[in-house]
């Protein structure tokens, strides 16, 4: 049940600095933990996060095992034009989630 929550203003003025908040559901299993019977729990994390604004990359991040479960990432960008902002999280075991949000710039 992969789910993401994205908070982005629906409307902005041209040139305005906007805050984008993202939250995604993921266990972020470090790979350093063991079960009670001693078997190692394999690493299962999101390792990269990329955001594009009308196709152009505006933000990206590398994630590591020390990052908590359900990573919450916030960043700022300048509202340049109306269009689509696309968020992609990729991780271990073929994990990939893409979400999009629309913004109207006046």
């Amino acid at each position, binding site marked *: *049940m992969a*789910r993401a*929550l*994205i*908070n982005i203003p629906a409307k902005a003025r041209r040139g305005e600095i906007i805050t984008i*908040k993202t*939250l*995604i*559901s993921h266990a972020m299993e470090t790979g350093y933990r063991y079960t009670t019977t001693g078997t190692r729990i394999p690493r299962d994390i999101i390792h990269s996060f990329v955001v594009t604004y009308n196709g152009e990359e505006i933000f990206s991040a590398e994630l590591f095992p020390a990052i908590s479960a*359900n990573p919450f990432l916030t960043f700022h960008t300048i509202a340049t034009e109306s269009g689509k902002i696309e968020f992609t999280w990729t991780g271990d075991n073929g994990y990939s989630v893409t979400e999009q949000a629309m913004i109207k710039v006046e």
Partner: protein
Amino acid sequence: MKKTPLSFSKLGFLTAAMVIFTAVPIHTTEILLSERRSTYEQMSRETRAMQDEDSANPGMLWVLDGEALWRTKAGETNRACANCHGDAQKSMKGVAARYPAYDDKHKRAVDLEGRINLCRSEQQKAPPFVYESRELLALTALIARQSRGMPIESKDERLQSFIESGHELFNRRQGQLNLSCVQCHNDNWGKKLAGIALPQAHPTGYPLYRLEWQALGSLQRRLRNCMIGMRMETYDYGSPEYIALETYLMWRARGMMMESPAVRP
């Protein structure tokens, strides 16, 4: 049997009891209604911000899962929660603020998790969810979310015996450390225990996202957590002791605002 008036021996006992109770200063172990505080007030600004904003509150991820499950058909009857209860945002409004509630059929108090599982096994004819499973937490979170900002209600008189046994458990010294709940949560709230301010332990935000767990958890999980800290043997999930404690704690927090899904450190 012939009714007898109070005998002298009984009177003597009563007087003795009264003398004892007035002579020995009883430690007041109840928090005044006006002095009750949600743990929210003891949290850092950052943690409060997480709880306040839906898109920053990880508990909302479970609420979203709950919305999907609400509409998922299950069991022999092949019916979803939505088939009977309709829109959860309307039908479940204020429900969690009244739980644990008295169940007429089973003649006992039932908490929200228990109610969901009863609905599954009796109405949907589906196997009940395991305690603390993603599914059960998701549905509980969805239902509890609909009571956010509403005052906790505990008015049903049939709950009285459950409240009383919960109260007794709350006051009972248990575990290898010989501690009772009141010692921390009534007598010393606000003081520090290992760098953390002791809360009053009002269950206003369950199921809640605990940063330490990095997950959502139920009130029963939280109670187990404390019990392990007291070095006592925990009860099994769903046991009458937990239900009694939950019922008592909700009564103790009556009138306080629901915050589910809350965020706690």
